[in-house]
């Protein structure tokens, strides 16, 4: 079984996506089917972007288990006060600067939920956010 953890830095838009690209290459080598790989890539990328643009820094974990791939995003804050709001399509607190870089449409969390077979999000203001996504393979 494989379990890898990759740190993701806050604020570094030029590196945003590097971890997701790495995970994608790994999935290719493992022969994960293209449609499942695409769904997982959408989720890892959206999660990675959120760590960069919204969090104080965190990590992505990629784990292969029998019949299932698990992706987790964990960060060190600032946390989400209203998760229902954050899950609403189009709702975003992203800055104009982030929008100019192509993100901040408020579709990231809904995209993750739609593409994952299992999705859970927990968050505590001042502590951090944890998103866990499972994909049946």
């Amino acid at each position, binding site marked *: 079984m494989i379990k890898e953890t990759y740190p993701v830095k806050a604020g570094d838009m030029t590196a945003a996506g590097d971890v997701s690209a790495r995970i994608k290459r790994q999935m290719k080598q493992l022969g994960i089917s*293209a449609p499942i790989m695409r769904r997982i890539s959408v989720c890892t990328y959206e999660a990675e972007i959120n760590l960069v643009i919204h969090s104080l820094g965190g990590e992505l974990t990629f784990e292969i288990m029998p019949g299932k791939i698990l992706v987790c995003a964990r960060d060190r804050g600032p946390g989400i006060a209203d998760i229902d709001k954050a899950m609403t399509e189009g709702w975003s607190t992203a800055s104009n600067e982030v929008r100019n870089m192509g993100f901040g449409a408020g*579709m990231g969390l809904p995209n993750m939920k739609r593409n994952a077979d299992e999705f859970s999000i927990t968050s505590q203001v001042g502590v951090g956010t944890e998103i866990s996504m499972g994909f049946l393979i």
Partner: protein
Amino acid sequence: MRVQEIANVLNAQWLCGEDCASMQVSTAFASDMMSDVLAFVQEDTVLLTGLINSQAVRTAEMLDLPCLVFVRGKNPHQDAIERARALGIAALLTPYSMFEACGRLYMAGLQPVRLGEDDD
């Protein structure tokens, strides 16, 4: 439609990925917001965008898109082109505006991505 035909219809310059000229795409999607692209797009799609940083290429990479078109003659950042080249993704530069580029491709027979349908 083959990527080469897209280049012809858009009077486009090849920035990289000439190897993809004979690849087929059946639909097109146009947006500067990458999350919208990630929400709606299937793999045999050409992405038209005014976003010229490397996140446009990253988005194409995540979705296995064969071809990216940069509109309004706006040259993408060099690292974006290099990334597309390394990934084997065709990058085209058209002088047309987003509206005109989309209009020309639509008239040439390219289909829109159907929204609200599951892509798997």
